[in-house]
């Protein structure tokens, strides 16, 4: 008996040794966390064109679409609100988006409903223009803060379905009253945390645009605060912004300028096992693009973090670092490389190409985190002189060449980031 057991044991060992399966080649790369940095992979909805076409929403030739915001519904679909600007006016549109399995050159396909007007300018202070919405879903209701009157102030509205909105009579709920704002504020983003609505917005839009902070217990009455303990309560006007431009290589129109601009913020409350903090996605060089093909400064999206919403630390920009002080991979954009917005590999394994002479503006980000899937979704306002000619006029995956002479369109791009193995 003992002899048989011994032989069996040895045979088992040898058998295991020679027959173990290779399996799926695990590499220790699954379920890795993501800090929200990305890289965000633009999805290409026009596979047969050489350039990446990330547009899920576009606009007519005489209009511009921008300022997106979105929420993820419990069923996994998204409601998207965006601004359609035409002439001196603008309104807020609503679309619903459903993610579908990717095909051809992309990880996700999308189904997007037709445009529906969610909010049109109505009040006198709005001066015919509402836009740059941010929407918070709470307890089955939706709360929207929006920009009115071309940076004249920020209004507030409520809805039960995301499409039909009721304004508050107190509008505008936030007006430019601090010296640094120079009479202009807009582009709000709001989160609710620890019993307070917390808003980040941009101001001084015609010069050194920067990002300020305000908080409210009801979403209607706001108090502006800064990192130095100052507050707007009591009529003070010396509150300063919480984020200003200082990464000269991409937040400045030209690195040699005396001031740059940061604005159009989107804030996410991010929970990791050690702490909860805010992630701020913002646009650098909002003064706009310039055809400086070899000087190449245009607007891009950056990221910063803060534990209290007032003291912010930006992701590093390598050109302002010494060796080893910053990671080898640059995070915040510079003139040549626009992290966290990047082109990713296509599903079929090939790589998207790009044009060296395409001036690509990425601006006005909106981010939603889906923690259980370790995923961040990103919408943004994209202007691409070449891409814009293609996307609005072609059905997806049309194999024909893009028509010449199509100009003036902008769109909302779609990207995602996670660290799951593909």
């Amino acid at each position, binding site marked *: 008996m003992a002899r048989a057991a011994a032989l069996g044991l*040895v045979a088992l060992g040898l058998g295991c040794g020679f027959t173990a399966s290779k399996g799926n080649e695990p590499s220790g790369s699954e379920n890795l966390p993501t800090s*929200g940095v990305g890289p965000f992979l633009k999805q290409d909805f026009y596979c047969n064109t050489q350039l990446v076409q990330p547009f899920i929403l576009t606009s007519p030739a005489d209009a511009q679409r921008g300022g997106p915001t979105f929420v993820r519904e419990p069923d996994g679909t998204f409601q998207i609100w965006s601004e359609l600007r035409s002439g001196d006016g603008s309104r807020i549109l609503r679309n619903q988006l459903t993610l579908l399995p990717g095909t051809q050159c992309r990880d996700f396909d999308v189904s997007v409903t037709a445009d529906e007007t969610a909010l049109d300018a109505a009040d006198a202070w709005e001066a015919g223009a509402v836009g740059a919405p941010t929407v918070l879903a709470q307890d089955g209701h939706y709360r929207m803060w929006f920009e009115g009157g071309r940076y004249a102030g920020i209004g507030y509205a409520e809805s039960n379905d995301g499409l039909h909105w009721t304004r508050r009579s107190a509008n505008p709920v936030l007006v430019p009253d601090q010296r640094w704002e120079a009479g202009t504020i807009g582009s709000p983003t709001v989160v609710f945390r620890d019993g307070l609505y917390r808003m980040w917005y941009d101001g001084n839009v015609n010069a050194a645009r920067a990002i300020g902070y305000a908080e409210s217990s009801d979403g209607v009455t706001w108090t502006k605060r800064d990192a130095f303990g100052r507050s707007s309560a009591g009529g003070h006007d010396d509150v300063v912004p919480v984020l200003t431009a200082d990464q000269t290589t991409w937040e400045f129109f030209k690195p040699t300028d005396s001031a740059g601009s940061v604005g159009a913020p989107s804030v996410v409350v991010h929970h990791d096992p050690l702490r909860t903090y805010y992630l701020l996605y913002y646009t650098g060089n909002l003064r706009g693009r310039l055809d400086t093909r070899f000087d190449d400064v245009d607007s891009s999206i950056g990221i910063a973090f803060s534990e209290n919403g007032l003291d912010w630390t930006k992701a590093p920009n390598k050109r302002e670092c010494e060796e080893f002080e910053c990671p080898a991979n640059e995070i915040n954009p510079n003139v040549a490389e626009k992290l966290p917005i990047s082109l990713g590999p296509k599903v079929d394994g090939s790589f998207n190409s790009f044009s060296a002479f395409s001036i690509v503006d990425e601006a006005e980000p909106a981010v939603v985190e889906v923690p259980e899937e370790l995923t961040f979704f990103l919408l943004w306002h994209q202007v691409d002189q070449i891409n814009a000619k293609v996307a609005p006029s072609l059905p997806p995956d049309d194999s024909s060449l893009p028509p010449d002479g199509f100009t003036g369109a902008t769109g909302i791009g779609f990207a995602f980031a996670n660290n799951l193995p593909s």
Partner: protein
Amino acid sequence: MSQRRLQKRDGESARAGAAGRAVRGHARGLAVALGIALASATAARANPFDAYGVGSRSAGMASAVTAVVQDFGSVYYNPAGLAQNGGMEASFGYFYAPPTLEINGKDVNEDTTSGLVAGFVSPPMELPGGIKMSGGGLFHLPDKRVARTLAIPYDQPTYVLYGARNQRTMVMFPFCFELAPWISVGAGISLFVDSSGGPDFTLREDRPDNEGLFSEGTISATQHGRFYPVAGMLVHPAEGFRIGFDYRSKNEALYEVPIDVSIEALHIFNIPFDVLPESKIVLRQQVFSFFSPDQFTLGTAWNATEDLLLTADVTYALWSAFQQPSPEGATTYEGGLALLLGANPNFGLPPPDFHDIVIPAAGAEWRFHHDESMELFLRGGYRFRPTPAPTPKGFNNFADTNVHVIALGLGGRFPHLLSVVRGPIDIDVHAQYLHLEERLARKDNPVADAYGDFTMGGYVLVGGATATLRF
């Protein structure tokens, strides 16, 4: 602008994807070349034995055996122990070590380490002066592949001491001399192979005597055999008391992939000068793998009773010599391309900044039954391996924590089990539980890398069996 953007995007997508797509910057050509080089790795040593032990008797005592080992495990733990063996014996066994290693409480699916372990001890040979000489050999063959190394991006959280890094073939050959009944010394080598090589080719434009652009080139590869020493000493200062000392040399494999692309001068139409003078692109990529540190171990053993053996070891491991294991490379331009494109900035990877550690271990072996037909042993041990890795700060995200190893073993010696062998047969089994303490990686700036803060920890379960035949 375009060239730099393309390179960057390749790198980013690699970071976002699986580790196999992780070679930074120079994309597929280099990855393929690197893969060819890595595939030529043939022999190595140390890591799986450092992590999980050699043979069921030693592993069942948490590897606290430097002063008592005398079977084929002597080859690794202390070559001087070979002198304690009186005859020819051959051992073979198998172990299986599936890890459950977590980041933020989620299993990252590290690879299982498993495979065959075999060895032999030769009978002692009498030399002039009363000196006895013994020899041996130790082999480990993973059951999935000869060796595996992964090119992981430097900032990806990675359990750098476990998983695929322990999949490697190992070959060791020592010799031992018993100088006197109370002292033995041993020494040996472990075999290692470095690999280097890559393509050199030339791009040539359309010329009157050629048709179209073409390239020509060669591929070369070189393997450099390396031998790393091991040495040990065993002393019997008193009855029932032994002291052992062992040294295992640092070893690592370096894989280099140099690629030189020569570009002949470029002409356009009949312009009487070179539009682009003769140029060269020089790419250098390298990766260190299979690192094991210099280790010095002092062990003691005491026969507390006729049936109870107690052991203790302490190891000093010089992990400060650990080198960046992620692929690192540089691309430079020479000639006309240097004039056209300017200097190509090559940023080095940050050093891993590991530190030396002291590893204590203790073991016990109790013979709880013996008669003419068999002896039965119960074994146990504990080993504490502090982490040599610094707290991740984002520049590197090496995941490693303090490790507590709890070991159990059961063994039997059967003098009459098989008539075809002359001596007793040992059959041993063992199990280990490696507990990786939870450790926190809190970053000064969590958006300075793609992973942010994280926690790490987990466990590895190890099981194995060994049979030893004596002739």
